[in-house]
């Protein structure tokens, strides 16, 4: 109805002793979106969402979540915001249905536990003890507990960490189903693929600050408006002929030859322009490869310690390499 944002946080700051966990974070989450908070481990993501949820009081800055002050109105806020926290287990012998029934009793207007079990594919596991669930089932139960109070906002922290690819995909489908039911979602993650697949907008957090906000595509463009084209000519073509052919091609920013392969960096209609120019100089090509910067490259260049944004944009840096 109104366009009031679900979350509005301005200049949040939080230190633990002499460690500054969050230096300056501002966020605006609009109704109905999946908002990603992406960053390395230790970047301040969890502390940020804990301040949004009223579990920690910011040292400075203001937060309003659904129009409430999380510190002052914690009880009212918890009635309307569901949280799935990292590494929150349940007692080993508590059964799935018992957990949901118990947590449903905490809220004024809870969802039907049976419906939730259905939505999360846990109906067959209703009588299973927590310790006998698989990792993916535990996470889905955790999501169910975050949703059982019919929240308007769900905050999901490192939802799929430790899950195998199959369970991860299942969990993503659940997140999309939740959004489809009208719940706004804040998703904390350090997984590029997850952010790219699910999020409408992403805030990239590094060292306790927001380093970029935008759609996944915007973030990528911000880091690298660049494409990298690799062309391997047929036969032996002298380097200076290859490089000479590119003279006057407008979108080329940089070109070099390495191991008989021409590597061209640039933007715009780079591929077409370069191939036409080469053809005009009689260079035939047998192998052409185009690398586009990915969200992962953007992540590395925007959150890395001094990483150069014009660095090679091969989308092959493993996600784990960016973890600290």
């Amino acid at each position: 109805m109104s366009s009031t944002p679900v979350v509005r946080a301005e200049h949040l700051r939080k230190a633990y002793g002499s460690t500054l966990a969050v230096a300056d974070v501002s966020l605006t989450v609009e109704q109905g979106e999946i908002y990603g908070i992406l960053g390395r481990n230790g970047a301040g993501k969890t502390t940020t969402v804990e301040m949004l949820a009223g579990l920690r009081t910011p040292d400075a800055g203001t937060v309003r979540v659904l129009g409430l002050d999380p510190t002052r109105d914690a009880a009212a806020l918890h009635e309307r915001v569901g949280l799935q926290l990292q590494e929150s287990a349940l007692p080993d012998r508590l059964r799935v249905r018992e957990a949901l029934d118990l947590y449903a009793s905490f809220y004024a207007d809870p969802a039907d536990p049976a419906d939730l079990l259905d939505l999360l594919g846990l109906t067959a596991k209703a009588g299973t003890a927590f310790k006998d669930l698989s990792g993916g089932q535990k996470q889905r139960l955790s999501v169910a507990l975050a949703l059982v109070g019919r929240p308007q906002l769900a905050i999901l922290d490192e939802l799929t960490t430790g899950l195998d690819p199959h369970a991860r995909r299942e969990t993503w489908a659940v997140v999309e189903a939740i959004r489809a039911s009208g719940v706004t979602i804040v998703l904390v993650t350090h997984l590029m693929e997850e952010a790219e697949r699910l999020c409408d907008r992403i805030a990239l957090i590094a060292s306790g600050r927001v380093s970029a906000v935008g759609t996944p595509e915007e973030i990528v463009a911000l880091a690298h408006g660049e494409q990298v084209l690799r062309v391997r000519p047929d036969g032996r073509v002298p380097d200076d002929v290859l490089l000479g052919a590119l003279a006057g091609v407008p979108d080329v920013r940089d070109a070099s030859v390495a191991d008989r392969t021409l590597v061209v960096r640039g933007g715009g209609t780079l591929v077409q322009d370069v191939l036409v120019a080469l053809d005009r100089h009689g260079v035939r090509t047998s192998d052409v490869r185009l690398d586009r910067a990915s969200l992962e490259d953007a992540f590395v260049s925007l959150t890395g310690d001094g990483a150069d944004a014009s660095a090679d944009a091969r989308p092959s840096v493993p996600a784990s390499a960016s973890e600290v």
Partner: protein
Amino acid sequence: MTTTTAPRPTAPAQRRTLARMALVEGRLLLRDPSVMFFSLLFPALLLTVLGLAMPWADQPYDAEDPFLSRISGITGYTPIVLSLAIATVALSTYPATIATYRQRGVLRRLSTTPVGPGRLLVAQVLVNLVALLAAAALAVAVGLAVLDVSAPSQPLLLLGVFVLAVLAVFAMGSLVAALAPTAAAANGWGMTLYFVSLFFAGVWLPLPIMPDVVQDIATYLPLGAASQAMTAAWVGQPFPTTQVLVLAAWTLLATPVAARLFRWS
């Protein structure tokens, strides 16, 4: 988007939530076979085995003492078994469960709900109290019915001292629950306290045959004082003033310290 504030939970609703939590915690306790055995059955079992098998069971408890010479060995051992029942729950089961709940994020998850984690602690204390009362009642019932344990000579004093002992030893268990950084630490600290306490309560060797210095130390420790005070009430010795004061002091000191130092995550 409607922005009606959620109705504040009313007092009966809060009590219902607590009752529901206690019920769930109770079920969890019943599902744990080792806790079931040691918390509920072991005191009665120990008393029965000793009562039936030990030659000293029907001998005078202490021939030298004017009071203790009038009761049998197994009667003298019954208040000690009550101390054991208290200690097993208050120093082992209870702090280990709380520390596990903290370490595994059960408390943290509750802090994200309108209810908060405080009520789980209350539910845990309630459930453990019920388990402890059941264990104590079972041990006394078996003692009176099956073994030749003579009835306590001052039942009301016994009951009062028992309640005070429960409070004092739970306060000590709460200190462990509050301070232990991990579930493993809570287990380790709890078990150390447990076995040392059992020694001073006379579970391994009856207090009357221990050196005076051990008996004197025991008077100032929660479980030792509990054991001595319950023995006094059971056999009709003079009012155990020192022990009652010691138990009260432990309760009044340890409870606020535990509450103050308690870490939720």
